[in-house]
């Protein structure tokens, strides 16, 4: 399984590749785009993008020197007609540079690029919200050779989808950035912090009512409050455990490391590390954690042993045990969270947390 990892600057490419990423992805917002459209909306993120075409070429060359590739995101959920034309030109330019893949979030753009036959791989972004084998098949019909599955599919669903569509590659999330809602069905904007930030991080108070008009009973009020308290706790995990790291910089937060054996068994081609806008150290530590887990798997250790190793990487199995930090909580239900199974202490591999 390949590690897919992000960069936001050219000078991050060598380090991310050296850490073990074989597919590196980035975005670009060139000045001719902003001049023409008065918007940064080439992709899903306004920040963390390259700004010059020359940088794309440099990134591709550096990655190649390290045995890696560069993929370009075009993963806004929707584009207007004139933007599709501009993106088509960008796609042709990127293909001509030797880019590896385009990661596309708009189904119309995917179909258009698929018909053009640009000689570059097309990856259907997680923004396309593929939740079943039929959707994957359609994305393949439109030209995608890989489907990036959204965060909210279960391991069982991933396994079934991959088994049903052997002609396609699949990529699954493994670390960082946990949407509270479904990314592909989110029609909000990550506003600046002063305006509330992402809607899932915004400070909404909830006032419940019964839809039949009856007053809430005291027991209902208590149950709703208890549920909301746990929801707040889940949000804390969802947002990187308060955006915290271990003493040696390993990031907490949404994680599927212990599911790597199951994903590999399902034939998943690649695992994705999210977080283009994050600092380089977070990206590097993330790649290192995935690489260390994959190394154990490639050493033919048992799935349970690899899972235990992954859960021990941050030496906070208590956080794993809640299941709230997981992309794929089923693993916790299957193996629990602990350092059993005789696995060597992961800290010995990654450094003391």
């Amino acid at each position, binding site marked *: 399984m390949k590690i897919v990892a992000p960069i936001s600057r050219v000078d991050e490419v060598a380090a991310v590749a050296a850490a073990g990423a074989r597919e590196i992805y980035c975005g670009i917002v060139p000045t001719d785009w902003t001049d023409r459209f008065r918007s940064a*909306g080439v992709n899903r993120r306004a920040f963390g993008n390259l700004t010059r075409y020359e940088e794309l070429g440099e990134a591709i060359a550096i990655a190649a020197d390290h045995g890696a590739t560069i993929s370009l995101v075009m993963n806004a959920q929707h*584009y*207007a007609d004139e933007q599709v034309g501009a993106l088509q030109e960008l796609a042709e330019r990127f293909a001509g540079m030797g880019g590896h893949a385009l990661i596309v979030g708009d*189904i119309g753009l995917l179909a*258009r690029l698929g018909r053009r036959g640009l000689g570059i791989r097309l990856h259907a972004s997680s923004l396309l919200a593929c939740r079943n084998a039929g959707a994957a098949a359609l994305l393949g019909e439109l030209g995608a050779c890989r489907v990036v599955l959204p965060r*909210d599919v279960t391991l069982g669903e991933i396994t079934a989808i991959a088994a049903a569509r052997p002609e396609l590659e699949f990529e699954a999330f493994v670390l960082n950035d946990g949407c509270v809602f479904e990314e592909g*069905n989110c029609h909000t904007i990550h506003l600046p912090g002063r*305006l509330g930030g992402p809607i899932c991080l915004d400070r909404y108070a*909830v006032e419940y*009512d019964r839809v039949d008009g009856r007053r809430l009973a005291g027991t209902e009020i208590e149950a709703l409050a208890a549920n909301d308290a746990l929801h707040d706790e889940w949000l804390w995990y969802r947002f990187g455990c308060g955006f915290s790291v271990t003493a040696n910089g390993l990031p907490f937060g949404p994680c599927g490391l212990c599911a790597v054996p199951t994903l590999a068994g399902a034939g998943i081609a690649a695992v994705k590390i999210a977080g283009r806008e994050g600092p380089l150290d977070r990206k590097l530590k993330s790649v290192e954690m995935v690489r260390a887990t994959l190394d154990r798997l490639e050493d033919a250790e048992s799935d349970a042993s690899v899972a235990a190793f992954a859960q021990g990487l941050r030496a906070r199995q208590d956080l794993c045990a809640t299941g709230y930090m997981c992309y794929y909580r089923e693993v916790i239900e299957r193996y629990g969270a602990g350092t059993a199974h005789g696995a060597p202490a992961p800290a010995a591999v990654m450094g003391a947390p």
Partner: protein
Amino acid sequence: MSEVALALVQAKTLERLLENGPPRVADCAGMLGWPAPPLPNGVDGQRVARIHLGSEFCETLLPSEPQLEQAIGLAGAAGLGFALLTPALSDSGLAALAALLPRLARGTEVVANDWGTLRMLRDIRPDLIPVAGRLLCKMVKDPRLPSAEWARLYPHGVHSGPFGSVLAMMGISRIEMDVPPFADAGDFRSETARVSVHAPYGFSVKGRACRIGSLGQPPGGKFTSGQECRKECLVYVGGLSRGDAGAGDLPTFQRGNTVFYRHSPSMISALSEALAEGWIDRLVLNGDWNENRRPH
């Protein structure tokens, strides 16, 4: 004049709604507990022409076969058109939907919010009429946007050529849209597709992990994909507020796994203008899936 469709998640109110034939919108408002639905002028007095049953947001709420049969029968007896509403579906959800399809007569509309659903309809029931639901017709719909400039940063492509080509490939000639914040009447103008628009609420974002659906689950079973629930969304609605920070927000609430906003007067004006221009040929009213702000 555009026709009016009434969207319902539950079939249980249908018998009463239709006992005197096709109800007027004002009758629906009374029976379904809409306090003062913000709708375009004149809609109150219109009669409902269609019933749309199901959920666009959660596969747990797919109707059962008996519910579907009852609803089709009641709608047919009242001389109303019928559509089955479907959400984003997992493979098991698609299997559940496939079991319902034999109940649908040739020419019945199925509103799909998932590309896999549309592919299945194309392949196994091409005699049904597929409609692209509002989850597939993407546009910025953030209830917190302070100005129209924010929405213009990400223009929608609902009527773009490339999206239209995909719709054509899937045999789709009707789309469903929301009224976005800071809507312009031109947002609804399509050169190729028939346009249905939802009112008086739009959806902003939906999740799969469900907050209210976690109410009856143990801590380890809460807030996760594929979780079990007791359909608490049928019992509770959550009003959302950002306090002073949200003074300019559209009224916002969460029903089930989805956040909705209520249309503002300016959005209703844009909707009214598009209706008057004939760019919208169907208004879909959110029947039982709304704020339900009944007097206590």
